């Protein structure tokens, strides 16, 4: 599904990530940890084709990203739902239109998927906030809206970058419950986080694999997690 083979990424003359090899199997639940600035976000960007590896190979759905045009990468990205820490919304559009954005840009009629959209907003608990603008949402609501947007195309993989970074414990548990629910539906989950509490809570509910970026390399995390 997502394969990295001896991947390295350099920027500004320095190597940020080196010799990374990983095979994310379908239906798996991965956590990626590491200190701030260790390259977790860069790693995720490599995993959804937003960045090109400077060495090695990144394969998304068995296609090497290096040989793809930007439009091809865009089409592949529709199979990967991404949740950012800062969510990244279009602030001038209401929640419903932001959540439906992947449908809009892929040429599908969001009105045709209206029932699904309502179900999805109900699933993340945002039915009452459907017409609110993103700046009017709380941190937790933004994260849940971002998750709804990430799954509206029914992607095979969901990548989340510090999804609980700006929300309280209760809200992060609620978000984790949604992610675990998606994993049980067969979706592949990869979460970058330094929230060890979140990882422990997830391990109690689902089988997870924890990876750590240390000294620019990818390692399996210790048993303490």
């Amino acid at each position, binding site marked *: 599904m997502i394969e990295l083979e001896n991947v390295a990424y350099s920027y500004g003359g320095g190597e940020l990530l080196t010799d990374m090899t990983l095979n994310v199997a379908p239906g798996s639940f991965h956590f990626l940890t590491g200190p701030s600035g260790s390259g977790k976000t860069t790693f995720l960007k490599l995993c959804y084709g937003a960045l090109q590896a400077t060495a090695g190979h990144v394969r998304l759905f068995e296609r090497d990203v290096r040989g793809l045009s*930007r439009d091809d990468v865009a*089409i592949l990205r529709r199979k990967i739902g991404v949740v950012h820490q800062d969510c990244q919304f279009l602030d001038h559009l209401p929640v419903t239109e932001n959540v439906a*954005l*992947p449908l809009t*840009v892929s040429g599908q009629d969001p009105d045709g998927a209206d029932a699904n959209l309502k179900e999805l907003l109900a699933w993340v608990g945002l039915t009452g906030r459907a017409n609110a603008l993103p700046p009017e949402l709380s941190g937790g609501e933004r994260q849940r809206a971002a998750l709804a947007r990430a799954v509206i195309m029914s992607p095979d993989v969901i990548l989340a970058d510090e999804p609980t970074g700006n929300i309280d414990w209760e809200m992060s548990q609620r978000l984790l419950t949604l992610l675990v629910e998606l994993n049980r539906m067969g979706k592949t989950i990869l979460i970058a986080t330094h929230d060890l509490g979140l990882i422990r809570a997830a391990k109690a509910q689902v089988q997870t694999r924890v990876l750590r970026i240390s000294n620019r390399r990818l390692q399996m995390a210790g048993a303490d997690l």
Partner: protein
Amino acid sequence: MNFDLRTTARMLQFDERADRVVPPTGFTARLTLFSAFAMSFLAVFALALSLAAGRVADRWGNELAQSSTIRISAPAGEVATQTEAALRVLRTTPGIVDARALTLDEQRALLSPWFGADLPIDNLPLPQLIDIIETEDGYDAAGLRLRLAAEAPAAVLDDHARWRRPLIDAASRLRLLGWASILLIATAAAAMVTLAANAALAANAQVIAVLRLVGAKDTYIASAFVRRFALRALTGAAFGTLTGIIALVLVPSGSETAGVLTDLSIQGIGWVWVVLIPPLSGLVAFVATRYAAGRVLEDLA
């Protein structure tokens, strides 16, 4: 970014949802509207100038091309003889339809704009003028001069070429200048729209990042900007053209002494060019924005 014919056609299709993804941009919207308005207004004038210059060049060319004059400058007693000799030569010259000596009244009428109607022309040693009307193919001016020199030495042939050519050249260059101005105006409009589009795209880098995150192709992102700028340019140009036409109507005209300055009007086929100004402005904006979007999206990749 792929910019084939199919992609271009898709870019021009109205798509309300796609257009909504780009937030309203006040400054660049006003800049594009104003630029298109001003440039179209100027384009109407440049076009009117070019068309008027063209008409003047054609008129001078047609009116003067088939006429010549012979001037008889001889002592008073010989004028009639020399005139008669010159007319004899002219009657037997191929390429001349008609030749006749101007009457005193006609010569007075020619001079009256400068000296007034009361000029005592009888007492002045004025040369006798002979008006020549040529066939379409004209005559051999060099040959005629030689024959006149032999048979009517006081006759001087003026085939108007000497002073007609600079006037026609001037009018033709003025016409060319008009078209060059239109080209410059279009280039300046394209530059301004490119700048505005660049500013709008740069200001919306975050929007572009979000669209890419959710799987938007570059063509889709560019389309949203391209349609918006093309529509603004079309609207601004339509108002600019209309204002230009109204301003042209208000320019005083002088039909009897029609020249470049008194004949700045649009006539006949010229209206086709005027009607084309707004869509051409839209097209210029379309191409300029497409170019700017291609560059910015490449830089942001």
